[in-house]
């Protein structure tokens, strides 16, 4: 057992999977440059020494190298492709959405695309184009699985499960949760370290997790917002309101079994999402919960999200943009 941050846990997962399976390789920008960074957030730091020829540094060409990763996956390799910032996934959108996600269906089930995509997201003092919450653009794409780990244990287990899955799996990681150190440390970072077992494990790609049990209101969140929601639940408890907090974790498919059990118990739902309210994952969750468990709801579903604006730069504005612990507390308290 050891205590690791998300960046270290992901690094360990990648190394173990590459050790286990010679078909696994990494492809991306600045991921294996000796003396370099190990990707934008140190996740692959030093791996080029252990896996020569399998940490493939690319030109700045997301459309191109995502196509390369998908082509290699179709021919039996198991690539892990990453972008430095999730925003750059949009450059590779054609390859991910039109090729990776559809190739199996178009072939009548005759081919498969075992591809892992890693993408850092979240508003972190970088203005509008290195900050978006990109989940919404990919959760509605049939043929893709989308997960978002909020702690190091899940990060390692989900990445390993993704590598072993025969489908394209997109892992969204939050910049403030990496626990990156040294020059790549993020100001305002939140502790997402976990105790990591010494033995091999995976975390299923289709399960939510109950992080705090409660009876009066269910708070659904993922990534950084999960941590804010847990803090909010602490405040709510002090006010005598028992909040259950679920880490949605699997954004596609959504785990309505776990979510439904909680909704039936509390009858009240607050969905917390970093990213604009309109058209977000929260909108899908709200609709899905209402369709499935509408009879159990004691009040309409409430969303706490960012306003419908690009991510601002000024720290004062950025902090006002992102849902805060206080906003979550207020929304849940009104509902409960």
């Amino acid at each position, binding site marked *: 057992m050891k205590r690791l941050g998300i960046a270290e846990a992901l690094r360990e997962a990648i190394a173990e999977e590459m050790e286990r399976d010679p078909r696994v390789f990494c492809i991306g920008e600045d991921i294996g440059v000796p003396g370099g960074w190990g990707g934008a957030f140190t996740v692959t730091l030093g791996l080029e020494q252990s896996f020569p020829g399998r940490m493939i540094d690319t030109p700045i060409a997301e459309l191109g190298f995502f*196509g390369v990763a998908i082509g290699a996956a179709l021919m039996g390799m198991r690539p892990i492709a990453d972008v430095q910032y999730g925003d750059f996934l949009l450059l590779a959108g054609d*390859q991910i959405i039109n090729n990776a996600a559809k190739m199996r269906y178009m072939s009548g089930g005759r081919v498969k695309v075992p591809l892992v995509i890693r993408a850092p997201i979240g508003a972190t003092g970088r203005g509008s184009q290195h900050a978006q919450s990109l989940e919404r653009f990919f959760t509605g794409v049939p043929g893709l699985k989308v997960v978002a780990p909020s702690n190091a244990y899940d990060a390692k287990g989900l990445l390993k499960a993704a590598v072993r899955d025969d489908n394209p799996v997109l892992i969204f990681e939050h910049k403030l949760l990496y626990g990156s150190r040294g020059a790549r440390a993020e100001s305002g970072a939140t502790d997402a370290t976990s105790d990591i077992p010494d033995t091999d494990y995976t975390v299923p790609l289709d399960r939510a997790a109950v992080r705090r049990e409660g009876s009066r209101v269910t708070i659904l969140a993922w990534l950084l917002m999960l941590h804010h929601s847990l803090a909010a639940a602490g405040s709510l408890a002090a006010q005598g309101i028992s909040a259950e907090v679920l880490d949605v974790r699997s954004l596609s498919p959504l785990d309505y079994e776990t979510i439904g059990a909680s909704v039936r118990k509390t009858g009240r739902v607050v969905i917390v999402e970093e990213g604009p309210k309109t058209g977000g994952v929260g909108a899908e969750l709200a609709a899905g919960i209402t369709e499935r468990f509408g009879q159990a709801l004691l009040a309409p579903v409430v969303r706490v999200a960012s306003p419908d604006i690009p991510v601002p730069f000024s720290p004062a504005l950025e902090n006002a943009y992102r849902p805060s612990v206080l906003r979550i507390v207020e929304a849940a308290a009104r509902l409960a």
Partner: protein
Amino acid sequence: MPDLAATGSDIRLVRWLARPGEEVKRGQPLLEVETDKAVSTVESSIAGMLTEISISPGALVSAGQVIALFEVAAAMPAPSLELGQPNAPSPLPSAGALQDVALSAAVPAPPAPILDRSFLLSLFEHMVLIRQFEERVKFLFLEGVMPGTIHQCQGQEATAVGVCAALQEGDWITSTFRGHGHALAKGLTPQELLDELFGARTGCCRGKGGSMHVGNPDKGMLPAIAIVAGGIPLAAGMALAFRMQKTSQVVACFFGDGAVAEGAFHEGINLAALWKLPAIFVCENNLYGASTHISKVMRNTRIADRAASYGFRGETVDGNDVLAVYDAARRAAADGRAGRGPVLLELLTYRRTGHSRRDPCHYQPKEERETWLSRDPIQRFAARLQERGDVSAADLEAVNTRVQARIEEAVAKARLAPQPALSDLETDVLA
């Protein structure tokens, strides 16, 4: 030393026909050799200055042995094709001297194989199969019995057949929305294609792909990619897998001239060039992206030139000459297998039909159209075959008849092929 297919006998050098310091043309007689059968002349497969001769008259030589060194210009400009003389007869290929239309070879070409009668007839039959398939499909659409839309390739048969004939078992292709010809050339049957076009469960993609996504991984063809240039980075990745798996496979990636303006083209070929991947980028330049002429979308309309700017070899080839295409693809495949990296083949051809189902093609000028129609790849190849002496008009007619019967049989079955069950709707999304 090219392979003379000398049935194992010794080959002895009689004399050199060129001297060190001499500029030698491709196809120029280079040396005289003696086998147990005859004394014969070996033509140069390389154009350049002969700098050194490494064997002397009387010595025994074997295929593949280095016998001379040349200094070769890095990138010789390819001669432009004479479109004004569409039916200019070309010499038929013989062992060791396959005719090249346009070359800028920086490396020695692999020895040309012997093109025997059955191989040539098979090229012809595949081209006829594609033409008749497309014509039949056109009428099925006119009948109103076939769903969806179609993008047809009448007039472009030589590109698909020439390239696929140069591939080996285990090699792959990627294709586009205009992919029926590629599929037939890669060995998919008219039946599995027609069934797919009818949306049947028995189609090559079980009715889930349709005309724009035909493919069959068992035959080395991914479902065709209908996003322009979308297959180019993908092919680079397939080639990367072959490299990492240490196989000798290559991938041929088909796309049209329209793809050249896409970012995916530039990113994909740059990566393949950078890592010297075994990919053949096959641009079927039919002069039009949908209805827009190539001159309206690029300043430099010689597409093969793009390769040089990314540091690899490009070649413009008469895409309506199946043997020229075959030879260029064969050399490109050999480059890939030998680790020399990708090749960009620009195959000049012409679409006889509209871009898609309802396009009457009014934007093709009459004169341009007539010039190209007179260079029809099937008619030209039929004429060349008959010059051989061992292929008669009756032989070719027999091919036509056989193909027609095969297609009619497939059409009859496809009309009755079972549609997918509704329970198939949501299957095959995830593995």
